[in-house]
């Protein structure tokens, strides 16, 4: 289970990434494919910013658009996508769960009604990220360290 409602059907998320005074908007497309989760971020005009694959809760970016293709941007985006789309096993009666990511990073999930409603990313002893399920179709993810906010709304066909 992850904070995002991913399945083998295509999930389309209207996405706005805000940082300082600027914003990058577009569509995040994600779906489960075999044992991996695959996705892409495109702008409204169809220009692809990057593709990503999450396998065993590890995210890898591919086909990154040249202006985004800087190591620090790739690292930030892939760690945030990994946080958003990593999945944790939960038993039916669980109200919380923890996923240890290694390198001192762990994800802490709060559950309600069988869904993840909140998640926190802890690096060492510091909270570096948090994610909220605002309702059935709206999500917000904050990278506290880098001061980035991802606002995502499910696009219904």
């Amino acid at each position, binding site marked *: 289970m992850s904070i995002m409602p991913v399945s083998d059907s*295509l999930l*389309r998320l*209207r996405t*706005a990434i805000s*940082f300082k005074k*600027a*914003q*990058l*908007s577009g*569509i995040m*497309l994600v*779906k489960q*494919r075999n044992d991996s989760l*695959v*996705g*892409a971020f*495109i*702008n*409204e*005009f*169809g*220009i*692809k*910013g990057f*593709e990503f*694959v999450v396998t065993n809760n590890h995210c890898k970016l*591919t*086909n990154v*658009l*040249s*202006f985004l293709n800087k190591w620090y941007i790739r690292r930030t985006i892939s760690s945030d996508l990994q946080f958003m789309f990593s999945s944790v096993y939960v038993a039916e009666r669980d109200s919380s769960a923890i996923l240890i990511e290694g390198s001192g990073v762990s994800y802490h999930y709060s559950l309600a009604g069988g869904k993840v409603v909140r998640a926190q990313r802890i690096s060492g002893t510091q909270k570096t990220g948090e994610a909220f399920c605002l309702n059935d179709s709206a999500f917000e993810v904050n990278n506290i360290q880098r001061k980035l906010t991802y*606002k995502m*709304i499910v*696009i*219904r*066909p």
Partner: protein
Amino acid sequence: MIKYLRFQLIFLLIFVGANTAFSQALIPATEVQKKDILAKISKEQVNANSLECKFVQKKKLSVLAETVASEGVMYFKKDNNLRWQYNKPYRYLFILSGGKVLIKNESRTDKFDTNSNKMFREISEIMIGGVKGNTLVDNRKFDARFLVGASTVVVKLTPKNKELKQLMKYINLTFSKSDWLVKSIEMLEQGGDNTVITFTEKNVNKKISDDIFRIN
């Protein structure tokens, strides 16, 4: 910086194009045909003071084995007014007018001055040039190949500019021989995915209010 970069992306949009064009046999145009094609497109541009049409945009994503579609309306009015509006499945608005640009989504509105730097100016020139068709003859930015079919003409534009080359292999503009307006645009990315925008219900010289291009 991000604004500029986003802009760089945005302009590409408009010039994205058409696989369908290759469903019919296309042969390279002779020099005489090329001159004739350019003359016909230019004539249409001179006569068309405004253009309103619907569009459907289809984006192929091989990593997802999916094609995603969106649709909207486009308005163009001489000299340099463009409104590009997505209606489904999301709302998104792009207006270029009087040297300024407005970009609006559900949560935010941004405005830019195209004269504030060289990149803005160049992008706005290319955008308007694409709609008008005079991008075809701008051989500073693109190598153009003309291909002739039974009912269409395809102009294959290969970018010369380094930044554009990183983004796309080529752009195909498909013109209908019946009205010499752009029928569809295809952009092929370096990775192999493409975006096709097909224009329908074209209205030439229909009265369009200046209000829809208002930025301030």
